[in-house]
């Protein structure tokens, strides 16, 4: 005989899971108890939301499904923001929650919450398990659904009696068969041909890359395609890292927080090739204007994204790396020189000088320099706020990765995501950059970092205000700083000391650089606080 909790653990083993991030509670105890006997590492985070963020950082860095676990009621509810954050950025997660006994479901017993109901619009799929015997099939399906097609979080809610129930033997299904779920992976050959015809007639094409390039593992194919055709590339925030920043074809990030040259490129183009980008409002504020002068080829694995935000001339549904491969086989196009020269000119003309203040760190040049000191394949994780924009526009990407909460814009993402990323890639540099606002939303995870002696580097851009909104107030609210002042609280150096983490405070770019060198040499966690002027603009 085998009980449900052990079945859950065996399912995780069958799926090759080596680590879970979670927080225990009474009704998930049977599961954690069985997990305790195995090699699967269970990382205790300090709040459930961070379990989901850590699993997300892990999933992105390891290119595997991340697993987070919480108990019923408040535990599960705390996890929602993390699950929704993963959903918006298409990150594969399996979230496991304990639930009260199935015979008292719906009676509002202690720590009961309808988590499958509450999460409905933030998950790719969810299960409330009613029978121990269903667990193997459900786990098999959940991992399959999370990782395939357009990835996303899947929730499995397991009542405690289902964990305690027993069945004869454990058999893990070899295959899944969900009749309503068969994502297409190859682009339709006719659409490929039509796309190439449109491209052949284009004088001013541009490729716009999104997070799909990285999710699909299409980075090498994309770079090959760009090398061959010379088509310029702009990126959404989620697509950063798809192209090396110093590649001459790369223009920069588009959108309200992007660079002018990139926005001009997309607005002057006659063909936009969207690669795994969903044209969010922050990326293209007025898609209707773009389609007035440009054809649009939209490549995406999720048919629902095509035509949702931007009218499409040629839709291609499929896995981007396959579609790019199909295109590569037949393409014989070269981007016209005149177009490339124009863009190069805009890049020079439209670059903004960085504003500096004495006694303060100028974040953009600091981040730019920092990128050159990192080892190969470093992982930079930006939080949300001005720090995100500074990172997105200034950090020089080559073969590393850039993680951030792009869709949901969840403050407090960077530190727990860095925890997950470091567990996935212990030999790589993992740097979290956040503001003093976001840092205070997840600084409890310093305990997780210290407890596991995780070599995670945290850079806090301390400007004593909630910078992004503060800046908005400057532009639109007569500089009335309503509820955006953090003042000089707390003393982050003392906080770091309390957790036994090394730290430093930098008041100039020279200091910040010197400390960051010291920080990168050490194999221990480090907190670098950069003193940033509250009026330093986002760009």
């Amino acid at each position, binding site marked *: 005989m085998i009980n449900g909790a052990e079945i859950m653990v065996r399912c995780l083993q069958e799926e090759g899971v080596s680590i879970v991030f979670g927080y225990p509670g009474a009704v998930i105890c049977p599961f954690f108890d069985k997990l305790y006997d195995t090699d699967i590492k269970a990382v205790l985070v300090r709040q459930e939301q961070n379990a989901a963020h850590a699993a997300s950082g892990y999933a992105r860095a390891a290119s595997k499904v991340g697993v987070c676990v919480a108990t019923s009621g408040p535990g599960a509810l705390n996890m929602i923001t993390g699950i929704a954050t993963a959903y918006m950025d298409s990150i594969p997660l399996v979230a496991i929650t304990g639930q009260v006994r199935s015979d008292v479901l719906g009676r509002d017993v202690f720590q009961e919450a309808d988590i*499958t*109901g509450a999460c*409905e*619009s933030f998950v*790719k*799929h969810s299960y*409330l398990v009613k029978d121990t015997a269903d667990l193997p099939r459900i786990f098999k399906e959940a991992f399959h*659904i999370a990782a395939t097609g357009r990835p996303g979080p899947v929730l499995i809610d397991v009542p405690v009696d289902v964990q305690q129930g027993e069945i004869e033997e454990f058999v893990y299904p070899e295959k899944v068969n*969900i*009749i*309503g*779920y068969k994502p297409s992976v190859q682009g339709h050959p006719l659409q490929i041909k039509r796309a190439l015809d449109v491209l052949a007639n284009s004088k001013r094409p541009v490729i716009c890359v999104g997070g799909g390039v990285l999710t699909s593992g299409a980075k090498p194919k994309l770079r090959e395609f760009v090398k061959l055709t010379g088509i310029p590339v702009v990126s959404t925030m989620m697509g950063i890292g798809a192209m090396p920043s110093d590649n001459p074809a790369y223009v920069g990030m588009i959108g309200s927080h992007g660079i002018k040259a990139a926005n001009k490129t997309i607005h002057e183009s006659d063909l936009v090739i969207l690669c795994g980008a969903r044209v969010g409002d922050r990326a293209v504020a007025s898609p209707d204007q773009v389609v007035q002068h440009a054809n649009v080829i939209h490549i995406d694995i*999720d*048919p*629902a994204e095509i*035509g*949702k935000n931007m009218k499409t001339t040629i839709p291609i549904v499929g896995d981007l790396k396959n579609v790019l491969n199909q295109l590569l086989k037949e393409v014989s196009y070269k981007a016209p020189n005149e177009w490339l020269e124009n863009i190069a000119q805009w890049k020079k003309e439209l670059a903004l000088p960085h504003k500096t203040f004495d006694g303060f760190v100028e974040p953009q040049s600091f981040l730019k320099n920092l990128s050159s000191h990192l080892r190969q394949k470093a992982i930079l994780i930006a939080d949300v706020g001005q720090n995100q924009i500074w990172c997105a526009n200034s950090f020089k990407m080559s073969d590393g990765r850039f993680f951030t909460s792009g869709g949901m814009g969840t403050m407090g993402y960077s530190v727990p995501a860095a925890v997950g990323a470091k567990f996935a890639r212990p030999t790589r540099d993992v740097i979290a950059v956040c503001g003093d606002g976001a840092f205070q939303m997840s600084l409890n995870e310093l305990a997780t970092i210290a407890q596991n002696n995780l070599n995670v580097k945290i850079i806090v851009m301390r400007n004593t205000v909630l910078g992004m909104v503060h800046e908005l107030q400057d532009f639109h609210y007569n500089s009335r700083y309503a509820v955006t002042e953090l003042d000089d609280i707390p003393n982050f150096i003392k906080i770091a000391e309390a957790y036994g983490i090394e730290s430093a405070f930098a008041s100039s770019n020279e200091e910040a650089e010197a400390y960051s060198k010291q920080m990168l040499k050490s194999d221990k966690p480090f907190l670098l606080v950069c003193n940033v002027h509250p009026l330093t603009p986002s760009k």
Partner: protein
Amino acid sequence: MKYTLSVLVENHAGVLSKVSGLFSRRGFNIDSLAVGTTEDENISRITIVVNGDEYVVEQLEKQLNKLIPVIKVRTYTEGGFISRELYLVKVHCPAKQRLDIMKIAELMDAKIVDVALNSMTIQFADTSERFETLTDLLKPYGIREIVRTGTVAIEKDSAVSKK
């Protein structure tokens, strides 16, 4: 414009809430929704009538297709399907008006399913346009209560074979 969508789904607990939840969170306005099992008891059919333009229907189809328990989505083309709704109407009806109302029911092909001292209940299965005619005719007598199902629809083989 009104569109009629036919959605085949796995017959599990919670599927209906996944489908109906989609409408409110994506801002779609539905006129009616009817659900029942098909010839295969593991599969249910949800018939949805929605008000919107082509963009709305295309998005709706795509978003519905994304739901894991959704097997197939079809939007019926005009003239290519038969649709019916079931109505139960309770009309105020003292003895002296019984004959009048019975005549209306007969004319409209409706059925009287309950007669009481002061009321009559009429069952009517037809399209919403025909139902409007019926209610117009009954209004002068005093309609006490109307109960209606959502629209169910089935594709016409005759229309398909003509194409």
